[in-house]
């Protein structure tokens, strides 16, 4: 079996309601390019509010409608605190960092 095609979307700075169009456009482009896995790399993400979280939930619905997979990696402590408060670890597939994602997802599927 060949490896799945991964498209990485880097989220930077503050993720809030003002980033809605940006996230939607980037995601649409990645889906149209035929990515199997949309990986949201949050290494450069400094702060997320509930509207930013709403954007991720919206993104997840878009990805599922396109029958692809969405994953996240490298959440900082603020984002993981937000995820714990809102029970998002039940909703999203989250990896510690990029290496963890590659080990767990790509090796397994290779």
């Amino acid at each position, binding site marked *: 079996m060949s490896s799945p095609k991964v498209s990485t979307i880097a989220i930077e700075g503050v993720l809030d309601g003002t980033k809605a169009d940006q996230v939607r456009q980037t995601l649409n482009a990645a889906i149209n390019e035929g990515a199997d896995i949309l990986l949201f790399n949050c290494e450069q993400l*400094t702060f997320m509010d509930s509207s930013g979280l709403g954007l991720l939930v919206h993104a997840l*619905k878009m990805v599922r409608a396109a029958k692809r997979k969405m994953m996240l990696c490298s959440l900082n*402590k*603020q984002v993981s605190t937000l995820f714990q*408060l809102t029970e*998002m670890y039940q*909703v999203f597939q989250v990896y510690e960092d990029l290496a963890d994602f590659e080990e767990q997802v790509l090796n397994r599927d290779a």
Partner: protein
Amino acid sequence: MNQNNHLQVKTDLNDLALVIDWINQWNPQVLSETEWLQCQIALAEGFTNAVRHAHRGLPLETPIEIDFNLYGDHLEICVWDLGPPFDLLTTLTMLPEPNPAHAESGRGLQLIRRVADELSYTRNESRQNCLRIVKYYT
């Protein structure tokens, strides 16, 4: 020792980064890192609620005032808006729990409620509303 800090921002979601940088100057060692991050999350939601809801339709220049006060056994975050009167606590009791997998909005107030040990939203004689979030040190 008590400490009082004040910030004024605009009715502009783009000021969120400024608000977070401002509160991040202090890291009350009396709270765990998680509790301190929870307070920052509550402040962010209080600020964006003021922009989106209390100040809906008001000009960008309309000020939002933020106080961050440290006391002997608790900290207090106040977000002051100039919007119309609003019964926040009654609204809170009527809001449904957002479904984690589906809700794209409606989490802000629940987040504040979950973090705060005490929560109030009151109006003063100058027609300012004050969202007051209190967190006790553990």
